[in-house]
């Protein structure tokens, strides 16, 4: 294109460049839309089930929050995703939100993705507030650092539903409610599975999740506390962050195998890191079952890992937040009190059900 432009007329070149950019942006948006429509065809599988709340658990109503009652169908809704849709959990989570919005006939859904850059997530959400969204669904990258968002949202009384990770702030004041798993319980169940796989003795390594959020903290403390309780002969001798990513999980596991070649078990705080660890184990010449692996999430790859004999157990963390998030919002806007802490039930996979239940993995 530029070859045809005479250099004596740089103004034209500049405006052509600008036009090309805008065309490019439009084309990309279009292809993304068509991608989303094909995705809605998939049947919703294994949707989230709420654990029965303890009697007297705190709830929140629209009056308490100061929100006006609106019809969700015609409302403008913003969804802010924290990490790139590059791993199964994030893909399933975003898709679930989009599918459910489409099902409910919510036409005005704005989505953004922070690509793991916290400042971008803050700017994304602030921009949504500026543009007049009436409900915010946020998958927070970090549990702290939301002060400027809260200030803006509360000035306009916009309810915020946080999913999968929690924000360290007051429910029903700074944000409406949190929907997610009991991460300490996940860690505890992973510890039980690890104790069983190792026969209550041995050395275990932990591949920690990304720092700075409650998921990593609780999956770590839940695991360690339970190990100390049920299997004091199991020692945690190595822990390092794999940032919830497969590459980092593999890298850390390679270092682990060099420094502690006789490690007995690896606890991956998510499936991606565990799958990275399997690659490292293969590279080190280990066979399936030589090192017992337990991880959390319930992705197809990991459940297949159980079938193949590499992984002993996978504790699920269900990412299909769409139905529950919008059901909660509908109730809230309709004047019904909603829980301030909505905890979902997670299943577990091991060799007894991996083959039969792999269909509910994501």
């Amino acid at each position, binding site marked *: 294109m530029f070859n045809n*432009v005479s250099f004596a007329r740089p103004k034209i070149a500049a405006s052509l460049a600008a036009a090309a950019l805008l065309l490019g942006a439009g084309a990309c948006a279009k292809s993304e839309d068509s991608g989303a429509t094909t995705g809605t065809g998939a049947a919703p599988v294994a949707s989230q089930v709420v654990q029965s709340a303890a009697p007297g658990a705190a709830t929140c109503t629209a009056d308490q929050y100061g929100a006006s009652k609106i019809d969700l169908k015609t409302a403008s809704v913003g969804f802010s995703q924290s990490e790139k849709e590059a791993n199964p959990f994030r893909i399933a989570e975003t898709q679930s939100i989009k599918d459910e919005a489409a099902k409910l006939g919510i036409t005005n859904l*704005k*989505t953004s993705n922070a690509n793991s850059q916290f400042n971008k997530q803050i700017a994304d959400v602030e921009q949504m507030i500026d543009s007049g969204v009436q409900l915010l669904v946020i998958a927070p990258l970090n549990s702290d650092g939301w002060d400027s968002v809260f200030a803006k949202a509360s000035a306009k009384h916009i309810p915020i539903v946080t999913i999968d990770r929690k924000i*360290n702030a007051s429910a029903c004041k700074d944000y409406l409610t949190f929907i997610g798993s009991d991460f300490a319980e996940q860690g505890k169940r992973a510890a039980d599975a690890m104790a069983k796989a190792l026969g209550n003795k041995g050395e275990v390594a932990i591949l920690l999740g990304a720092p700075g959020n409650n998921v*990593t903290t609780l999956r770590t403390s839940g695991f360690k506390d339970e190990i100390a309780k049920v299997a004091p002969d199991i020692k945690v001798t190595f822990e390092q962050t794999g940032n919830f990513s497969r590459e980092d999980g593999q890298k850390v596991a390679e270092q682990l195998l060099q420094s502690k070649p006789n490690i007995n078990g690896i606890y991956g705080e998510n499936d991606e890191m565990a799958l990275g660890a399997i690659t490292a184990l293969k590279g080190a010449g280990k066979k399936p079952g030589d090192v017992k692996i337990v991880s959390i999430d319930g992705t197809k790859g990991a459940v297949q890992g159980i079938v193949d004999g590499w992984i002993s157990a996978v504790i699920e963390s269900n990412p299909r937040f769409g139905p529950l998030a919008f059901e909660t919002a509908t109730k809230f806007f309709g004047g019904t009190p909603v829980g301030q802490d909505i905890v979902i039930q997670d299943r577990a996979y091991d060799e007894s059900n991996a083959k039969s239940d792999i269909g509910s993995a994501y």
Partner: protein
Amino acid sequence: MTMSVTLPAGPGRLAGVVQRQGALAVLVTVVVISLATFPGFRSADNAGTILVAAAPPMLIALGMTFVIITGGIDLSVGSLYVLGGVVAAWASQYGMLAALAAPLLLCGAIGVLNGVLIARTAMAPFIVTLAALLGARGLMRSISDQGSTTYLVRSDAFHELGTGSLFGVGYPVWLAAVLVGLGILTLNRTRFGHAVHAIGGSEDAAALMGLPVRRVKVWVYLLSGLLAGLAGAINAAKLGSGVTVLGSGMELDAIAAVVIGGTLLTGGSGSIAGTVAGVLLLGVIQNLINQVGNVNSNWQQVISGGFLAVVVVAQTYLVRARRTHSP
């Protein structure tokens, strides 16, 4: 933002102006088109969001402009940014002054270390500041317990510095504007600024002219470190805590903004006004992608990457056009 540029006659000089102000020209074009296309872009709130979000990257890119004009590069700024934020949040328990002084001292010290190593040992700035990138991030991890401890901002005055506003414009924007103004004066009107240009043009010639090459180099890396630390502190004040999952890749954004702004990576020539346009352009692109809504995260990066490529290609041609037409 919608500044009008009066262009002098003559194709060569026109190209020169557009090349120097190329980023501004693209920025104005994009902003005008967006104003007409996206109702959501038009609100004053949205402009405020873009400007406040652009303030910390602006400070970092300001320091980077000085470094790049000397022919150097500073890869440590992203790490200094996150380190500065964590240290500021921690120090805020001792009041606002401590929250500002602590990150400036620490990041300034690392900047001086960078500068001294580069100036005294003639090691490549790339390697020295890469070491600082790794070291500063490691330091941040060690004081935050592998990044899992987040210090909350304890000083209301410091918090206000990040969230408050004057005449409807956020304090971070005022701070960035004032420092950019001082930066422009320093670069164009002081002996230090002339030395920065001279060193980037030809270090040997600058030394022969009797300019204090080593001292100037130490100063630019000190400046870059200080500004990165300050940017981190301001961001922590805004967020209300010393978030540890920040800043990776930020040095590249800063370098990109500087280059888009017309500063040559080879050194010797550059403009802070261009850098301002470059930073704002990056912020506006991000905002626009969100205005379109529902753009897949992978496509977002493709679009911003494509945008950068086009701007850089256009500039290359414009530089060539200027050379062809200059007398």
